[in-house]
C-alpha cells in the first residue's frame, strides 16, 4: 500500500529535509517499521516502549489514529499520514 507521509519540521533531519516521504504498509505499526528502514532513528521519535508517544499526533487522512486503533490502525493504498508533535506546555 503506497502511503504518503507528511513529516513535521522537527523530524526532517531524519528524512534528509524531506517534508513528504513515501512508505508502504497496511497498518500504522508496519508503516513506522517501513519508514525506519529508510530513515533510521525516526521510529524512536514516534514510539516509546513499543507504544505511540503521548505527545506525537498521527493522523490517517482526517482521523487521529488514537480513535481508529492506534498502532493497529489499518492503512489503504492512497491514504495520507500526517505526523504533528503536540503543541503543549505548562
Amino acid at each position: 500500500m503506497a502511503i504518503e507521509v507528511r513529516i513535521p519540521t522537527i523530524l526532517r533531519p531524519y528524512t534528509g529535509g524531506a517534508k513528504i516521504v513515501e512508505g508502504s504498509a497496511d497498518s500504522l505499526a508496519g508503516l513506522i517499521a517501513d519508514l525506519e528502514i529508510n530513515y533510521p532513528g525516526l521510529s524512536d521519535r514516534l514510539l516509546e516502549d513499543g507504544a505511540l508517544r503521548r505527545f506525537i499526533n498521527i493522523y490517517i487522512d482526517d482521523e487521529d489514529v488514537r480513535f481508529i486503533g492506534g498502532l493497529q490502525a489499518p492503512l489503504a493504498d492512497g491514504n495520507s499520514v500526517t505526523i504533528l508533535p503536540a503543541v503543549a506546555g505548562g
Partner: protein
Amino acid sequence: MLEIAAHLVDAMVAHARADHPDEACGVIAGAIGTDRPDRFIPMVNAARSPTFYEFDSLDLLHLYREMDDRDEEPVVIYHSHTATEAYPSRTDVSYASEPNAHYVLVSTRESGADQGPFELRSYRIVDGEITEEPVVIVDPVEHRE
C-alpha cells in the same frame, strides 16, 4: 529578536486575560521564511487548566493544513502563565517542537483578567535550550493585493 506589530501583542494579552485563570494558547502565523508574525490564531486550550495547555489534536491538524495551504508557518507560539513568571517551564521546554518559532510567554499573575500590569517575553527554544530575545514593536505586515 521578535519583530511584531503592536496589535498582535495586544491580542495575545487580551486572550490571556480572557482565559485567566486557565492558560491561554495560540499561534501567530506568517509567510514562510519571513519571520514576521501576521495572522493571529487563538486556539482552545483542550486541557482547560491553570497550569497546562494543549491544542486539541484535530484543531492542530486543521491549523497546520490551513497554514500549509496559505504557505505560512507558525512564527509565534504563545501561551500564558497564570500564577508564575513569563518564563518557559521545564514542561514548556520538553514539548517545544517548532525549532523556528518564537515562543512567547504572557503572565497574568499580577492583574489576572483585569487591565493592569502583565509580563510578555519571547524566547527561542531549540534542542532543549532557552534563549530569551527582545520583543521589538514594528509596523504591521503589508498585504499587497
